């Protein structure tokens, strides 16, 4: 094993040890583990018939009972099972959109911090533009143009949420750019790509990781909002889409709280869990920033 | 008359790794009208010691012993009484004036604040008092309207001095008042400070006392009446300023004196004596005399027990086995 791999493994162990001591961070991890297990097991545990409107056997808007612990929706399906299935979709969209956002944010951030001159100005300009433009109206026009589907939802959220990351990474890159090993690497004639991938990226990586976790939280909230507005796939019952259907089917005026309450609690728990984990990671990676 | 008296004062900080001693059993006094210099490297406990006078230490600090200001123990005072004593009886000139001044308040208001708080003076008189103070420290009265960032480092330090003098306290504590300034300005500010303390503080109770904290023994030697040298939270030598500077007894003081030679002293040029190593971490002090790992004249006994601070010559104290014998 070479020296740098060894050093990285040591840093990982140290990180894991500090994280285990962080109580709120560990609470987040436990909550996430439960939801991820639900998402993975959903297709095994839930019969397809449970989601099929034509095969639903419950009554309309039935309150919680023994056979339907969280009651039924407007077509008589079990809300508990819809919720479990929704976990899968909400988490998938959340994680996929975060990956797009992170790749874009890291690429823009490193490039804007590494290059000088007009190119850098243009990159910073684009980042600032995305930071200023209000998220939801932008996402709405993009989603309307692309049409409602899960893939489009992922793309829309991905390209509207990377700018904050880019700014953070750019600041970090600028501070790394002044360090001696990069100066030496430049003096030895290393190319831009080599400098960025070998020196800058590994150094900003811990921060990217902490930021990713915080971004997932925001992205899941965005997914819920956009799906609630009907911009997701109507066939894929994510938590937001569930709330959309509850709203349009009149669950609110019927006082069917069992239809509205659970999806929201799931969103709050998952977003809170990602936030707690992200903040804990930030405290370890960058104690100065997180107070 | 003894203005301030530290009696067997100890300060421990609670940290993740347990208790860290910062000050260990210091006994020291300042007479009215006297300037006491406290010397030592950073981390030796001099700032912590000075902060106990106004009880400004964070909650993590545990203080034992006595700090008598005019024969009253500061450490057992009630909060209301303590607030009344702060600034009116003892004031501080802080180290970095940029961070010690409120960035969004005009300096005139900041100087007036303690006057309003401690003295019942009419609003009009406060303004003329602020102008007077600014003039005394060599700044135009119009500067009262400026914000801290609009002043130079030296000017900000002058503002700090004006602020410290605002309530005519009996004691001024100047904690490295010139460290952040460049050399020329350092001398000016220091002259101003010592001059004002000497001239202003002549009342019925005797002159204004001052504690001047610095790592520069040369500065202390020329401006102070007496000097106490601290190492690892203890006073290891004390005595009249010039004697200590010209004829240090303790090996640590000798090294400090050599690090800041008097300008034009040929001896220093031929025998440069830097001190090897770093001061010990307060949480992990060596056994015996805390200085022995860096000491050029250490003997085996130094590892086993710590020497006490004893009189080694008339009005000279030192804590070293080699000096005693």
């Amino acid at each position, binding site marked *: 094993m070479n020296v740098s791999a060894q050093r990285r493994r040591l840093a990982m162990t140290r990180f894991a040890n500090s994280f285990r001591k962080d109580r709120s961070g560990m609470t987040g991890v436990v909550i996430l583990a439960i939801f991820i297990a639900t998402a993975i097991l959903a297709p095994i545990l839930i019969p397809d018939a449970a989601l099929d409107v034509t095969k639903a056997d419950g009554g309309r808007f039935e309150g919680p009972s023994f056979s339907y612990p969280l009651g039924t929706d407007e077509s008589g399906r079990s809300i508990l099972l819809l919720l479990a299935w929704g976990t899968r979709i909400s988490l998938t969209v959340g994680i996929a959109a975060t990956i797009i956002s992170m790749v874009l944010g890291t690429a823009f951030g490193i490039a804007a911090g590494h290059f000088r001159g007009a190119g850098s100005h243009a990159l910073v300009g684009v980042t600032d533009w995305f930071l200023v433009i209000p998220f939801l*109206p*932008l996402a709405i026009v993009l989603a309307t143009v692309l049409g409602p589907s899960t893939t489009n939802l992922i793309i829309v959220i991905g390209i509207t949420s990377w700018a904050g990351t880019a700014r953070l990474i750019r600041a970090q890159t600028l501070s790394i750019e002044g360090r001696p090993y990069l100066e030496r690497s430049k003096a030895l004639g290393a190319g831009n790509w080599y400098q960025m991938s070998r020196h800058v990226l590994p150094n900003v990586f811990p921060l990217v990781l902490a930021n990713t976790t915080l971004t997932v939280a925001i992205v899941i909230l965005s997914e819920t909002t956009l799906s*609630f507005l009907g911009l997701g796939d109507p066939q894929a019952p994510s938590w937001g889409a569930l709330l959309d259907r509850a709203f349009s089917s009149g669950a*609110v005026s019927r006082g069917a*709280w069992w239809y509205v309450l659970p999806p929201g609690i799931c969103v709050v728990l998952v977003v809170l869990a990602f936030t707690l984990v992200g903040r804990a990671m930030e405290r370890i990676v960058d104690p100065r920033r997180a107070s | 008359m003894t203005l301030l008296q530290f009696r067997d004062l100890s300060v421990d900080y609670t940290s993740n790794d347990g208790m860290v001693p910062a000050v260990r059993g210091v006994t020291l006094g300042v007479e009215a009208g006297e300037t006491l210099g406290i010397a030592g490297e950073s981390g030796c406990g001099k700032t912590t010691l000075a902060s106990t006078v106004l009880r400004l230490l964070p909650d993590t600090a545990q203080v034992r012993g006595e700090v008598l200001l005019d024969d009253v123990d500061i450490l057992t005072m009630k909060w209301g009484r303590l607030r009344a004593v702060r600034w009116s009886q003892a004031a501080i000139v802080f180290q970095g004036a940029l961070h*010690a*001044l*409120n960035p969004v308040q005009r300096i005139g208001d900041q100087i007036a604040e303690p006057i309003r708080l401690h003295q019942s003076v009419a609003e009009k008189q406060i303004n003329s008092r602020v102008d007077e103070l600014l003039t005394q420290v060599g700044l135009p009265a119009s500067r009262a309207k400026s914000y801290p*960032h609009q002043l130079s480092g030296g000017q900000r330090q002058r503002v700090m001095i004006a602020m410290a003098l605002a309530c005519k306290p009996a004691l001024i504590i100047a904690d490295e008042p010139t460290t952040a300034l460049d050399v020329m300005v350092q001398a000016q500010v220091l002259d101003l400070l010592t001059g004002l303390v000497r001239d202003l503080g002549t009342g019925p109770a005797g002159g204004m006392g001052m504690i001047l904290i610095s790592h520069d023994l040369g500065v202390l030697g020329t401006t102070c009446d007496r000097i106490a040298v601290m190492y690892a939270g203890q006073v290891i030598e004390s005595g009249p300023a010039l004697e200590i500077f010209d004829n240090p007894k303790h090996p640590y003081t000798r090294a400090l004196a050599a690090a800041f030679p008097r300008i034009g002293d040929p001896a220093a040029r031929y025998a440069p004596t830097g001190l090897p190593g770093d001061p010990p971490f307060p949480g992990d002090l060596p056994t015996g005399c805390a200085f022995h790992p860096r000491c050029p004249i250490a003997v085996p006994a130094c590892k086993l027990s710590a020497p006490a601070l004893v009189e080694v010559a008339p009005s000279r104290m030192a804590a070293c086995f080699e000096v005693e014998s």
Partner: protein
Amino acid sequence: MGSKVLRAFITLAFVVMFNFFLFRMLPGDPIGLYARGRNQDPEQLVELRRALNKPLLEQFITYLRNPFDSTIDSTRFSRPVWEMIGERVWPTLLLLGTAILLASLIGIWIGIRAGWKPGGRFDRMSTGTTLILYSMPEFWLGMMLLIVFSVGAFGIPGMFPVGGISSPGVDTSGPMGWLNVLWHLVLPCTTLVLIYLADYALVMRASLIDERKQEYLTLARAKGLRDTMVRKRHAVPNALLPTVTLIFLSLGFVVTGAITVETVFSWPGLGLLTYEALRGPDIPLLQAIFLMFSIAVIVANLIAELLYVVFDPRVRS
């Protein structure tokens, strides 16, 4: 200062261009997009086709001459889009203005109490609560408040209206009408206040914790000031500066709440109009709304930057 205004104009210019090209650069028949999923009045379709069949450059120049004079009417309401927006601005201003004002007052108060003694009982409780509120979709909170306080559930009788800005038939110009509007305002406003204050409280707390480490606070204590005075006179004025700026900068996030909460409470403002437009979808209306929201946010950002210059003496000189 001039450079800040210039930058705001450049951002605005990009919004205007983006708004134009996004809907026209896509492959396929733009008419299809404009009329997607709707039965169009043939006369309106002809009009639409005439407008969209002109060369792109000519369309762009027409658009640039006056981006606010949409030649294409709303496809859903068959009315000029800017006229509709003009009608809907006031309810939104009323709702958002009240909500932001209350949320910033309460949020800053919570942030000060929590941030002055971090780790204390109040801090642990308030930070827990604000983090939960921060994780909450605002429209869901609105729906739950509706179920509990308007429809009535869990033994609580319904006390508030299910939606709208006033009861049908009530004249809103007199004092009784205002009370009626106020009664309708309670639930949507509470929803937004709870969501916004979480953000403001977290920002104020972090800002105050930063200030707590500053040496000028030690000096203030050394002068003999009481703890409350140290906080009020020295710590809070310094911590308030970044917080107030952030409140202005968060307007983009405020807009999100307006859209979904107005939808849930059928509050007849720009947010509900957005929902109506996107359910169509009514592209001309959506374009105009996007432009409108973007301008509002860009202007708020500019105000935030200028405010900073006014209030922070360090930046002023």
